[in-house]
């Protein structure tokens, strides 16, 4: 049993799609925010998978013999992107919750003043 980059990208695609579905399906804006970490987590999985399986390989082609050189992986740039994306997701959810609470209060105030 083994897992390849295709398996990793399948899982990442499923996470992104389920996150998009959660965001689109929820009527409540605060509940819809739960889809953001799912989508960002899926993107982070894709970045980490590329860093694990395929970094720098595409550029390592030797022209004269057209032989593909299987080299070692480079710096884990994908892991770095996954870390930054995870932090950005938390910040986005925090800001979104604050803005949704503000909008809900404005909505309630307008309803009360119209009565």
């Amino acid at each position: 049993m083994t897992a390849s980059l295709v398996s990793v990208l399948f899982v990442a695609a499923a996470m992104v799609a389920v996150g998009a579905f959660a965001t689109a399906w929820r009527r409540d804006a605060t509940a819809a925010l739960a889809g953001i970490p799912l989508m960002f987590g899926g993107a982070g999985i894709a970045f980490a998978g590329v860093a694990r399986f395929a970094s720098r390989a595409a550029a390592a082609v030797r022209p004269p013999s057209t032989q593909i050189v299987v080299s070692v992986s480079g710096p884990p740039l994908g892991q770095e992107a996954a870390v930054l994306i995870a932090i950005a997701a938390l910040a986005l959810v925090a800001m979104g919750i604050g803005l949704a609470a503000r909008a809900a209060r404005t909505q309630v105030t307008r309803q009360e003043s119209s009565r």
Partner: protein
Amino acid sequence: MDSPHAIGFFVSSAIAIGGAVFVALLPGRELRSAALMVAGIGVAGVDASLSAGFAAAVVLVSFAGCAVLLARPDYRAFNWTGGGTWRQLGGLGAALVFLSLAYAAYRGAFAHVQFNGGALGTAAVGRLLLAHDAFATEAIAVAVVIALVVLTLLWRARERDR
């Protein structure tokens, strides 16, 4: 990837996707936050099986923070969607996103390399974050500060209203 890592990858993937589906469908903020935490454990497990242990730790903390924020007791609902048609179109769009991404992954001709990093990769990621791409790190730090400032200001405004 050897068999133990592969088993960990597939089990973690099932946990992550199952938790994500429950986040999308479960009613109630407590259940939804618990499902988000389960999805975070799955995503962290996937990252750990991909030899990205440091990213897994950060992802776990991030999902836990999001779950705590979404489970706040002073939750106030705010409807933002119009009708059911837009929601159904959104669900259809999510399915199309999955199909297109899965097709791109299936058709992609990827070259593989020998992975020479450790299980955690903390030192390499730290070098990238703090030396090579310090500007990106600072940009994310500024975004976090802005989010915290917005959250604090809105919280203070709410307390004043009370």
